[in-house]
């Protein structure tokens, strides 16, 4: 019986092999391949807005066929890197950070600044292209402008612990932390298992209370600023002090950012700090009680630091949509039309309705359709200055070092001075 089963499966294999050689349908359309991480089962946030805008575009353009491949966000960059090594890049895809720069410098993606007419360019917010710039030219289209650090706090819990207004300064924050701990709540829910949360969402903006955008540019271009500068080391020290004061949950390095949000939504934590994207999750999953009690704030200012930007926040577009080099004219035109549709125009409205700020300017928005929570948030975010995100603009090895060291800093496994020196030596080696 075993032998005949084996023959059967061999025959099956051969038949299946044979069916592979059937000819593909003829095409008179323009076809493009597209890779992204907008999950179709996400019913809020960037994925929803993308879905609405792209469906609209597809319906209006039956002669353009776009085959999309979805890859989960966590695996996206690795996938992309393997594709690059085999020269198997899709025609259109999302890209960010130093990968964008490498691809641009290797000529694998095309610059887009000259491909936009002035009217189109004007549709975007001023600093929208910041994360897509390589040597002054933009290589991709942004679709969101999100701050990386928004404090979501529960005003009811705060009131219960005797803190009436959100702390405006770092010193006040420490006092508030003590009061909240005394009542048995976790002051700040932190889920840093994936290593980027603490660095990207908390520390990056906190550091900007001590240094500013000019310092960062100087650091990036190696024209004088270093991680070991006193102001930055002070930022590290004060950040570590926050952890030593017990502001975070003890298992901060073994839960991830979804679980930190869950802690907040289950009323176990008084606040959590994450990017603006978390608002979408809140709108979808939080109970009405939590939503009613949620307020927004900026990371508190730090007194006595002249070099910092007290109302600054690390943020920007992050990811950009890029176009592979070597496409035909028809394909390129189709690509541009597609990107225009999913980053500007109606997309802007969809974005606001889904609970995040798009990279394009929006007007004539029906305020009543927006979630009140989102309205509260965007009013606050409008007062902030966007500053460069460390892990997007620095190269990957430096970003990895920053992530790992921040994790160690939080549990006291490294000192601020050590961390600064280690990061600097990795930066110097680039």
């Amino acid at each position, binding site marked *: 019986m075993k032998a005949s089963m084996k023959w059967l499966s061999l025959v099956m294999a051969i038949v299946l092999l044979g069916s592979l050689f059937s000819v593909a349908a003829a095409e008179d359309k323009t076809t493009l391949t597209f890779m992204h991480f907008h999950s179709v089962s996400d019913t809020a946030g960037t994925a929803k807005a993308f879905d609405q805008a792209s469906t609209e575009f597809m319906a209006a353009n039956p002669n353009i066929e776009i085959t999309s491949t979805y890859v989960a966000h966590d695996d996206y960059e690795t996938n992309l*890197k393997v594709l690059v090594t085999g020269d198997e890049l899709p025609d259109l895809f999302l890209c960010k950070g130093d990968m964008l720069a490498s691809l641009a410098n290797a000529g694998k993606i095309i610059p887009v600044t000259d491909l936009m007419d002035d009217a189109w360019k004007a549709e975007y917010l001023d600093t929208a292209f910041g994360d897509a710039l390589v040597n002054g030219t933009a290589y991709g289209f942004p679709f969101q402008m999100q701050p990386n650090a928004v404090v979501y706090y529960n005003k009811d819990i705060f009131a219960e612990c005797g803190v009436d207004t959100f702390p405006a300064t770092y010193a006040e924050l420490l006092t508030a932390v003590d009061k909240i701990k005394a009542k048995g709540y976790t002051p700040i829910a932190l889920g840093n298992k994936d290593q980027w949360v603490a660095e990207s969402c908390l520390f990056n903006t906190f550091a900007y209370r001590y240094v500013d955008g000019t310092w960062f540019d100087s650091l990036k271009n190696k024209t004088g600023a270093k991680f070991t500068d006193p102001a930055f080391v002070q930022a590290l020290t004060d950040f570590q002090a926050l952890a030593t004061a017990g502001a975070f*949950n003890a*298992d901060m390095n*073994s839960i991830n950012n979804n679980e930190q949000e869950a802690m907040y939504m289950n009323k176990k934590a008084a606040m959590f700090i994450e990017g603006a994207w978390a608002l979408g999750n809140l709108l979808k999953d939080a109970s009405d009680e939590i939503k009613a009690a949620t307020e927004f704030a900026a990371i508190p200012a730090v007194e006595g630091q002249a070099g910092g930007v007290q109302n600054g926040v690390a943020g920007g577009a992050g990811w950009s949509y890029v176009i592979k080099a070597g496409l035909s004219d028809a394909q390129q035109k189709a690509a541009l039309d597609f990107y225009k549709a999913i980053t500007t125009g109606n997309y802007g409205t969809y974005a606001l309705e889904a609970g995040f700020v798009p990279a394009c300017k929006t007007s004539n928005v029906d305020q009543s359709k927006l979630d009140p929570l989102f309205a509260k948030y965007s009013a606050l975010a409008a007062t902030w200055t966007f500053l460069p995100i460390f892990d997007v603009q620095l190269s*990957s090895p430096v970003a990895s070092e920053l992530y790992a060291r921040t994790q160690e800093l939080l549990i006291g496994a490294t000192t601020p001075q050590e961390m600064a020196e280690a990061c600097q030596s990795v930066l110097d080696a680039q």
Partner: protein
Amino acid sequence: MRAKRRISARLGDILQRMLGPVETGSRQRLRVKAQRCRPAPLQPRYGLMMLPQRMRLMLERNAKRNLPLIYALIGVPFLLYIFIVIVPLCISIFYSLLKWDGIGPQSFVGFKNFATMLKDRNFWLSTTNTLIISLYCVLGQVGVALVISFLMTNRRLKLKEFHRTVIFFPVVLAPVVIGFVWKFVYDQNFGLLNTLLRALGLQSWIRLWLDDTSIILTTISIPVMWQYIGLYLVILMGAISAVPTEIYECAEIDGANWYQRSMKITLPMIWDTLKIAIILCASGTMKIYDHIYIMTNGGPGRSSSVLALYCFKTTFDNSNFGYGATISVMLLVFSLLISWVIQLLMGSYGRKNA
């Protein structure tokens, strides 16, 4: 003038000759009993030697005729294997001599990657971690499996079949499931471990399982150990079952208890299988990746980083394909070294004491 006999009759002759002369009566019973209680010397194989020359030649000719078929049959899987494993391996070794970010051009840098590796603090940290975890796993998987397989020969143990089946069960689970389940077990607030400790009144034993860098290696080794004990248990039990039962019976007659039987008889007889099991375990654990990735991703910081994880991160997160290939080459070298050391340590003992 020999009568022509059918082949099967001739076979019967051969078998009879192999089985020895026929005895009758009490003499036979006495002799058999005495024989059974003496350790049987290694019997020479009668087999082919007993066949008349003509038959031997026929068999050899048959074997030679089959040679092309043998090559063909082995050739297909062998070529597949070369294509899938050996060629990429060689390419990978070649990559370790390059500097390449995956996108731009490749540049040949000779052994510079290896020099960097010698000075790389993270590399040696990952190596130490991997070696420690391998040690824990060898003790925890093969060691425990050995003890359990000895216990399986003990009459006092009940429900043997149940234990066998159930202990092997985790081997078939995916690392994602294992990682997720154990992450839950270790969870601070509502994990199984803490709940159990609290219920037993042992709150003081509660630690930050996945956050405390001083215990993290032990903590993440346990799920790995737990998963594969069953595999080595089955392997060792198979080896034990190959030991002839007569030896045990004689030992019992001589008055040996279970412990002595296990150490003096079973252990030397399964020594070779044990050695192979340890080599498999050690080299397999050197490659460990999925479990660590799911549970801690190398954290906190880099305290639970292992070589395979470090290799992956270097190659893909840092876009350093050359250095990443170097690390994987070193991983292979370490595995070979460990296998060789184990072979040295364990190779001769078995033969001396068998």
